[in-house]
């Protein structure tokens, strides 16, 4: 460097007038301004406000009638039917799904083929067709009997007594649900590391213990979100049981709407809000179930909403302090 000494002096003598006198290293980095983000936020807020405003002020929705119907006993009876059908089908469907998944993963080609065919068929046939088919089943087979195949029967049932509307609905939904659940469960089992199977085998753990205590609990981590997805679909599919003359939530709303044609919109809103509530409850349960199965899989558990809120507040406070200090 061979600058004339005068140049350096001149630079030092003339600092820009509006710059603070702090050295560059001590100055705060200004965050990048993002005007596009602000504009987009404003547009979305305006649209959302408009939507809510329309929802609350448009007389078309008849919110007073909604209030009248929302907790009516016959609506709640329908809700109960929906819950019952969904709960039975969810449990039976999952059990069937586990059995089908194990069959598809078995070493026996016959079990694999039967399971594959079942899943293929039930995923191909629309649920409504399955339900209507079962509904008419008692016309095809008057009695069901348990006994030697093609031989004498030990037990016989009169099908028309056995197959109430509820039973038909639950069987139909479960048959359908099992086919989908089977693939969810199979995916979960395949997601467990091969090393886990090997370690369990190397320790000589009994086969049933390997599945119930080692493989399945780990599979549940990936089964849970997929099965809940399935479950939410199931809750909505229960609206189809109306077609096998079961008055679930949707069925009740439909028949009330036929009796009070002026109230059809508020009645549909009643059903919508109840389905929203059911889905919300399932989602909250899902969060905690997932959190439970995450133990050991992640170094620290995902925070609960309350913990998130607390952490957010702490962050905000720290940020305010920082801003104030600079």
């Amino acid at each position, binding site marked *: 460097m061979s600058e004339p000494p005068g140049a350096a002096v001149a630079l030092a003598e003339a600092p820009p007038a509006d710059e603070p006198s702090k050295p560059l290293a001590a100055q705060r980095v200004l965050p990048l301004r993002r005007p596009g983000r602000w504009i987009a936020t404003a547009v979305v807020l305006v649209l959302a406000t408009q939507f809510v405003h329309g929802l609350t002020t448009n007389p078309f929705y008849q919110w007073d009638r909604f209030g009248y119907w929302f907790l009516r006993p016959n609506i709640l009876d329908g809700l109960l039917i929906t819950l019952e059908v969904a709960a039975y089908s969810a449990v039976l469907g999952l059990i069937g799904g586990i059995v089908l998944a194990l069959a598809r993963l078995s070493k026996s080609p016959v079990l694999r083929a039967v399971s594959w065919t079942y899943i293929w068929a039930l995923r191909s046939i629309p649920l409504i067709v399955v339900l209507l088919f079962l509904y008419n089943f008692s016309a095809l087979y008057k009695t069901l009997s348990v006994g030697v195949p093609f031989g004498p029967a030990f037990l016989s049932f009169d099908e028309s007594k056995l197959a109430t509307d509820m039973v038909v609905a639950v069987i139909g939904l479960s048959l359908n649900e099992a086919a989908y659940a089977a693939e969810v469960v199979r995916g979960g089992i395949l997601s467990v590391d091969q090393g886990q199977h*090997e370690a369990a085998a*190397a320790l*000589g*753990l*009994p086969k049933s213990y390997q599945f119930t205590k080692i493989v399945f*609990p*780990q599979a549940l981590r990936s089964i849970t979100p997929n099965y809940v997805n399935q479950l939410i679909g199931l809750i909505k599919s229960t609206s189809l049981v109306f077609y096998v003359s079961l008055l679930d939530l949707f069925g009740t709303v439909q028949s009330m709407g036929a009796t009070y044609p002026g109230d059809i919109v508020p009645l549909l809103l009643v059903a919508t809000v109840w389905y929203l509530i059911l889905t919300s409850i399932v989602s909250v349960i899902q969060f905690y179930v997932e959190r439970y199965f995450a133990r*050991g899989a992640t*170094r620290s558990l995902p925070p609960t909403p309350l913990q998130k809120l607390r952490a957010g507040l702490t962050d905000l406070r720290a940020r305010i302090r920082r801003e104030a200090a600079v």
Partner: protein
Amino acid sequence: MSAKTLKPLADVEAATVEVHDVHKWYGAHRVLNGIDLTVRPGEVTVILGPSGSGKSTLLRVVNHLEKPEIGHVSINGELIGVKRHGDRLKELSERTILTQRGRIGFVFQNFNLFPHLTVLDNVAAAPVATGRLNKPQAQELARELLGRVGLADKTGDYPRRLSGGQQQRVAIARALALRPGVILFDEPTSALDPELVGEVLAVIKDLATSGTTLVIVTHEIGFAREIADRVVFIDGGKIIEQGPPSEVLDKPRHERTRDFLSKVL
């Protein structure tokens, strides 16, 4: 990590392992090509060989994680995975094989701890599941074994919170919980960061001096020299040479052994 030497497991007899003329194919590829090997009780055998030489397969044949097509393995004279049927060998039921494995320790390269169980439950699982101990007894044993590998303070943790070296020590404690007559190690330090290798080797070394029969597949030549009673060099699914480390490692007689050692040393 405590430096004290492990006491021999009181009620466990070190086992003899015999491998008789074992052949194993993967499809058309012959992985093991007539292996004969005898490991005497309390002996520490280190198996060396280039990658793909069949050394891990051999180890997995010993506890029947892999079935040999020809030949058989016996531990203390008991055939593993098969039984004699006239002059032929017949496969045993899965259940019986699992029972046999319950007496053979196996330590994996990738630890394969159960991530959803605590460290204590990982170690206590097998004795409970096989009905050999009740839960409190198994947990007491697990605590004792975890103390032996220097992890008494980690019993309540989940495996993923531990370092690789700690996880492998838990895996060794889990194998010890079987009270095995022989412990098989499949490259126990290959998945570890270099600075963590020492703590795992220290535990294995303590086991070696405690008189348990050990069969170890490893690439740690220095470690082999230090603890092995016998070094077995395998290539192409065959034993090329075997003997005390002073012979095989220092004065190898075969070209292939010399070649391999020159690459890894």
